[in-house]
């Protein structure tokens, strides 16, 4: 099975080389954790580094706003669109939920022939369908994309409450996707930092450690695992035993 590199070096390493081609990955996290930046970088790297065209489907944010946000990372999406390497489609979820709405999406896909698609976000679909139908409708949409042989990232805005929980969504949508990347804010020594963890990857091994990441002027940078702390997702992290012992040893030597 071939892999689709995200182009975010450390992320590709922990995904054992990237997403599996044709799979759907979900990036779930609270507001401001960086879901859209991850998704955009996946498309931009696909175009710039791997010659793979991309389609970005946005339900809420207008393309104009996305172009502007991308510019702050040096990504010129308008130029990519003019070169037929990218398309940004903006619609309401109810259009894609109509059986014939798939034809509109299909027309964009036929026009740009993307290898990578971003659906931003699945949580907006939840605003248009009753909860009991959400899973079925999301499944229909994601399966349609699979028939088009594209590798999809779907974002999902999840609640940050319930710090202990590793569940990406409250609606069972994570069962529909092949890979789940969970983004969280974590508080360490009174500062708010960002962490990610892969909680699911069908048919492949992956690194299960929690890692810090930053949003820099060039995009997302994923760092080494948090080895100095334990219980980060509990909301009350503590120094790991090894770190605590080293600190105590240093203090003992100084006294």
């Amino acid at each position: 099975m071939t892999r689709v590199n995200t182009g975010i070096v450390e992320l590709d390493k922990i995904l054992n080389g990237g997403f599996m081609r044709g799979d759907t990955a979900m990036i779930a996290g609270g507001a401001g954790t960086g879901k859209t930046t991850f998704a955009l970088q996946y498309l931009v790297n696909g175009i710039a580094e791997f010659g793979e065209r991309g389609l970005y489907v946005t339900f809420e944010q207008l393309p104009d706003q996305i172009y502007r946000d991308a510019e702050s990372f040096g990504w010129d999406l308008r130029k990519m669109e003019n070169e037929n390497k990218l398309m940004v489609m903006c619609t309401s979820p109810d259009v894609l939920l109509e059986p014939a709405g798939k034809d509109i999406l299909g027309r964009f896909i036929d026009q740009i022939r993307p290898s990578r698609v971003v659906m931003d976000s699945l949580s907006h679909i939840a605003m248009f369908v009753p909860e009991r139908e959400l899973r079925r409708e999301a499944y229909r949409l994601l399966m349609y994309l699979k028939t088009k042989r594209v590798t999809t990232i779907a974002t999902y805005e999840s609640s940050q409450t319930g710090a202990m929980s590793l569940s990406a969504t409250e609606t069972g949508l994570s069962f529909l996707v092949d890979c789940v990347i969970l983004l969280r804010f974590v508080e360490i020594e009174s500062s708010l930092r960002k962490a990610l963890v892969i909680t699911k990857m069908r048919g492949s091994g992956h690194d299960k450690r929690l890692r810090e990441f930053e949003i820099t002027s060039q995009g997302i940078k994923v760092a080494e695992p948090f080895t100095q702390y334990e219980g980060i997702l509990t909301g009350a992290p503590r120094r790991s035993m090894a770190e605590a012992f080293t600190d105590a040893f240093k203090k003992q030597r100084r006294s």
Partner: protein
Amino acid sequence: MNDARKILDRMLSSGIKADLLVLFHKNPGLVDVADGVARRIGRTADTIEADLKDLVDLGILRMEQVGKLEVFLLDHAKDREVQSVIADHIKSLSPSKGV
């Protein structure tokens, strides 16, 4: 009054139409129902419906039936054509510059 002038007058006959033109030009990948379009300019579907239909009539926007829904999108080819007619008209209005 020539055709270009008539088109221009009709395009700019209301503030809502101007907002719609800006919205679709800045967001050429927008494909939405009247309610979705209206939300994106902070209005309601019933207040923009007539102007949307007028832009469809002018050929700048296209309306398509998607199942039970009517969606609106920019007609890129026709839009370029209209823009070029208007640009020519504006050029013809500007006084020629002497050397």
